Structures are given as structure tokens and as C-alpha cells.
């Protein structure tokens, strides 16, 4: 990582190298592409497999699964916003047992790499989820969705508190196969995302997924009430891309070596390239898959071209290249706070 960051410039910058090495690593997970799906934006891969070969992208990140079956929130669950959308699904899903039996089994049979996203309402629940996955086949990595309220503690969101977040990660780490890389998925709705990142890294996480949705709201001007049944919802899509990119950049400044999966508003290969230049080792395409069901594959292809046009012979050469010359080890990125 550090080498890639400072090492070579872009060799023969003018000459497009046709065969860019698109392989990517996220901790110990090796993939043929740095482009993954995003949790909650691909179900368990089966539907998207109709539009492109899901084994060709990096991995399927599955919808966050909880311990028990869950009905989610009432509708309306979504609302379009300028260059984005709000959602409030409420983690509807079959529960971990059925997930392992049906979805995970299908993914494994299909030969797709799978990052299983888990979500709990208590530290204990996260631990139980990890235990269940320990004996299941086909788990290439675990993404821990910590943007959930902790029912035991005034419903404070795990991802918004460094200690609570660390507790979840410690527990998941302890209950998981030591070979399985564990990612913590961070929320942008915090004062200092680097602080949360450092805390979960200390707790033993193998990588970070950056970012989950930002909390937002729309009021329906006809009913004159919140447009979502859940009142507030998660804002996603290109609208939040600059926020997501800033989070990736800040975390890369704070933690030069941690694997980062960049997420937020990626629509094109050039968007993905921005994340990689900012320090992401791989990226997830979320909301824009709703807009274009082949988006993850298309982004992969566009990224391959963009890298080759810029003279990169591999993805890894481009990782963090946007930081070159900057004093990447300076603490906190405090130097970049905008005073407007």
C-alpha cells in the first residue's frame, strides 16, 4: 500500500496499456475486479445475474442480514431526491438461518465471491451472527453494518460511537473464523469519521467500508407529512458522492495501510477511479444499480479503460495516487476543514 502510494509515477502515461491488471485485494480477499455490489442494492445477487455474470465482478455484498426474519418498515420506503434517493427499508430479510440455507448456498454454487453483511440490535446479536457464519460455506468476508441502533443503549447508533463500534467489532472478530476478513461499515453522520475508523481498527477489523447512507428527509408537499413512513431515511446516490469521497480521503490520510472499500454514488468508471485515487482498494456500486442493472459490470469495464488510458498497468498502482506529494501521515486531515 504505502509503496503503491508513493512509489512509481504513472509509467508510460501516454500509452494506454490494453491489459490493465484488474485484480484487487481487500485484506485477504482476492478478487478479479475491484468493483463490488453494495449491501442492500443487490439482494443476494440472483436477480443481477440475469443482467451480467456476477462471478466477473469483485464480489456480491449481500443485504444486511439479522438474526431473525424481519418484516422491515411500512411503505413508503423510498423517495427520489435530486441526484439521489432516500430509503427506509428497515432491514427486511429472512434471518440468518434461511439466508445461509438459501442465499449463501446459491451464491456458493454459482461460484460468486460473497461478502456477507450482518446487522444486529445488540453486541450479542452481532456475535451470534458471526458464530452462525463461522460454520457456513461460501463466506469470503464479513461486512459489519454498524449503522444500527443499539436497543440496549438509548438506541444510539453503533457507528456513531467509537466505543460501541469497537465492541461490536471485537465481538465479531472473536466469534469469526480468523481466516475470514472482517470489514466495518462506517456512517458519514459523525463529527470525526477518522476517530471511528481508528477505533474499529484497534478493535481488530481487517478493513473499512466507507460509507453507509447519510440521514436525510423529505416532506411530501401534498400530504404535508414526511414522505417516508419511517420519517427519516438514508440518502444515497451521486448526491452524496463528494461526501463519501471525502470520508475515504480522510481515513486514508489517518490510516495509510487499512484496506478501504469505497461506496457512495458511484455511477461510472471515472467515479470509481476517483475513489481509488482517494485511497479505496475497491469500490461498491449501490444505488446506481437501480438505475442500470448492469452498472457494476459496466463500471468495471469503464474503470479498466480509464486506468489503461492513464497508463496504470494495475488497479493497485492507482490506489491512493491522488495523495501523492501530500503528507499523508499527518493526523486527522484537520488541515482540510473548510472554513466557509
Amino acid at each position, binding site marked *: 500500500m504505502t509503496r503503491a502510494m508513493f512509489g512509481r509515477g504513472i509509467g508510460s502515461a501516454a500509452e494506454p496499456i490494453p491489459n490493465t491488471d484488474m485484480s484487487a485485494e481487500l485484506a485477504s480477499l482476492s478478487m478479479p475486479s475491484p468493483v463490488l455490489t453494495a449491501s442492500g442494492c443487490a439482494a443476494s445477487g440472483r*436477480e443481477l445475474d440475469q443482467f451480467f455474470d456476477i462471478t466477473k465482478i469483485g464480489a456480491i455484498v449481500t443485504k444486511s442480514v439479522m438474526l431473525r426474519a424481519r418484516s422491515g418498515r411500512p411503505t413508503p420506503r423510498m423517495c427520489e431526491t435530486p441526484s439521489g434517493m432516500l430509503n427506509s427499508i428497515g432491514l427486511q430479510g429472512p434471518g440468518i438461518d434461511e439466508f445461509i440455507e438459501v442465499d449463501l448456498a446459491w451464491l456458493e454454487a454459482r461460484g460468486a465471491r460473497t461478502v456477507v453483511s450482518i446487522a444486529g440490535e445488540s453486541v450479542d446479536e452481532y456475535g451470534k451472527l458471526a458464530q452462525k457464519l463461522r460454520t457456513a460455506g461460501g463466506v469470503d468476508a464479513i461486512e459489519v453494518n454498524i449503522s444500527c441502533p443499539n436497543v440496549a443503549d438509548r438506541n444510539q447508533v453503533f457507528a456513531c460511537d467509537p466505543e460501541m463500534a469497537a465492541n461490536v467489532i471485537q465481538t465479531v472478530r472473536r466469534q469469526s473464523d480468523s481466516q475470514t476478513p472482517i470489514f466495518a461499515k462506517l456512517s458519514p453522520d459523525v463529527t470525526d469519521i477518522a476517530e471511528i475508523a481508528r477505533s474499529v481498527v484497534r478493535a481488530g477489523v481487517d478493513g473499512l467500508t466507507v460509507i453507509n447512507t447519510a440521514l436525510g428527509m423529505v416532506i411530501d408537499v401534498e400530504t404535508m407529512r414526511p414522505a417516508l413512513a419511517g420519517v427519516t431515511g438514508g440518502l444515497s446516490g451521486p448526491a452524496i458522492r463528494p461526501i463519501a469521497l471525502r470520508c475515504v480521503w480522510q481515513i486514508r490520510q489517518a490510516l495509510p495501510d487499512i484496506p478501504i472499500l469505497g461506496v457512495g454514488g458511484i455511477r461510472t468508471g471515472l467515479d470509481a477511479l476517483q475513489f481509488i485515487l482517494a485511497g479505496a482498494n475497491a469500490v461498491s456500486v449501490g444505488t446506481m444499480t437501480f438505475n442500470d442493472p448492469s452498472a457494476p459490470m459496466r463500471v468495471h469495464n469503464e474503470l479498466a479503460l480509464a486506468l489503461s488510458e492513464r497508463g496504470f498497468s494495475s488497479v493497485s498502482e492507482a490506489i491512493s495516487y491522488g495523495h501523492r506529494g501530500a503528507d499523508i501521515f499527518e493526523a486527522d486531515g484537520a488541515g482540510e476543514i473548510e472554513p466557509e
Partner: protein
Amino acid sequence: MPVQVRGEVLDVRRAGGYYVLSITAPGIPEQYRPGHFVTVGIGGEESGLILRRAFAIHQVQSRGVYGGTLDVVVGVQGKGTRWLSERGRHDTLDIVGPLGKPFILPKEGVPCVLVGGGYGSAPLFMLAEQLRERGCRVDVVLGASTEEKLYGVLDIKRVSSMLTITTEDGSSGTKGRVTDVLPDIMERNNSAVVYACGPMGMLAAVAAIAAEYRAYSQCSVEESMACGIGICMTCVLPVIGDDGITRMVRSCVEGPIFRGDLVRWDEIGTIPADALGAPALDMS
């Protein structure tokens, strides 16, 4: 299996309060069955509108100079449908389809009644044709708030055994709602199957009438959809399964056609207390 294609607009014509778009969409007509829908990308790459819009497939033409083409009937509701209504010949559109589960057709020639509210008549035309081919009697009821909101009255007449029109303001046909005339029609014709497409309120009422007459009902629902292909979970409604358990099911892939007696109409927009995984853990 649905495909994603770049379609070309062949024609946009006004029909009452609606716009009918004819679009080339190779691969979709070939797989079409009545009740299928398509989604359309809106506004191009720089648009602030990022979600696709869903439309019932109205007609398909599988052969012809353009290869497969399809028609959709668009009512202007908001930003996306306005944009679509402003398309012209030769514009290209990003089309995904065919989507959803189609109407189930009876094996034998039983009497059927088709109920369409507003643009809800759009998917009923080819359904009527196929039912007629199977020897079914096809009664049709079209209703709308006003005459302008009726779609396809003249054309559907040709494929229906009898056509009844209702408008709430009486500007065309019987003044009132489709449900005011439906019981009579069902009674008279001994209807065995009711097919319905229109607003949720209408579907609920139609399903209730069908149940009353012990007819089998198939309702095409319309829930807000972010993806249309089953990956987002925004389009759910409570439906009773074969096992008697209510689940929040995705209307885009498990619907949009549901058996009227299995949808818990009154509880749409809620999570019924006995639904699988309920109650929605309310965080407050």
C-alpha cells in the same frame, strides 16, 4: 429473463389525457405475456432523476421492420412521466423488461371480466385477446374520474364481449365507479375470473366483489418501485402465502399481479402484526 436494451422511440401520440409511446425493444416482445411491465431510465446521464419509472406493457409487435416493438401508455404524474411525454421520434430510451409475473390465464374458456382504472386498462388489451383465443367470454369495465382519463375505449371494444364505462363525473358511460357496475356484470355473466389493474383502492374493492361472487381474481398492483427487478425491497406489500403466513413481498418480482384474495389490502402501508418478521421493530 429480462433484458436491458436501448430502445428507439418510433412514435409518441396523445390519446385523451395520455401519451402512447411506441418503442423498439428487441428481446422484450418475444418474451412478453400480458401483465408484464418495463422500466424506463429517465433524463439521461446528467439528470438529477436517477430512478427508473415502471410502465405496463400495453401492446407488443414481435415482427416488423423494427424487430420487436412495444407500446406503453403514460399518464403525466410527476417529473419522470413529464420528461417521457416530451420525447420524440428517434430519441433513445433505456428499457428493461419484461418484468414481473404475468396474469395467469385459465386453461378453459371460462367467462372473465377485465377491470381497468385510468391507464390501468393498458395491460388489458392483449390479455383480452389471449383470453378470447382461449374461448373465454371477455367483459370489460373501464372506469376513470373523467372521460379524458379513460384509455382505449374504442380499441378495447373490439376485443371485448361487452364494454361498460364508468366515470365519476358522468362525462362518459355510467356515472360512478367500476365497482358500482361490476356486481351486476359478474352476476349476469357468471364470471369466473376477474382481472383488474388500477389504483389500490379500486383493486381492493374489486377483489372484495370477486370474493363475494366466489370468482378468482388477479390484481395488478402499483407500489413505488426504486429498481423494478427485486434488489431494493422498496415495493413490498403484505400478501398471504400458500402456507397461510403473511409476508411483505416484493411487488416487482412476485407481482405486480397478485391473487386478490391474498393481498391484505387494508393493511398496505403497514406491517400487519402477524406478518413474518413483524412487528417492525420501531426504534423509538
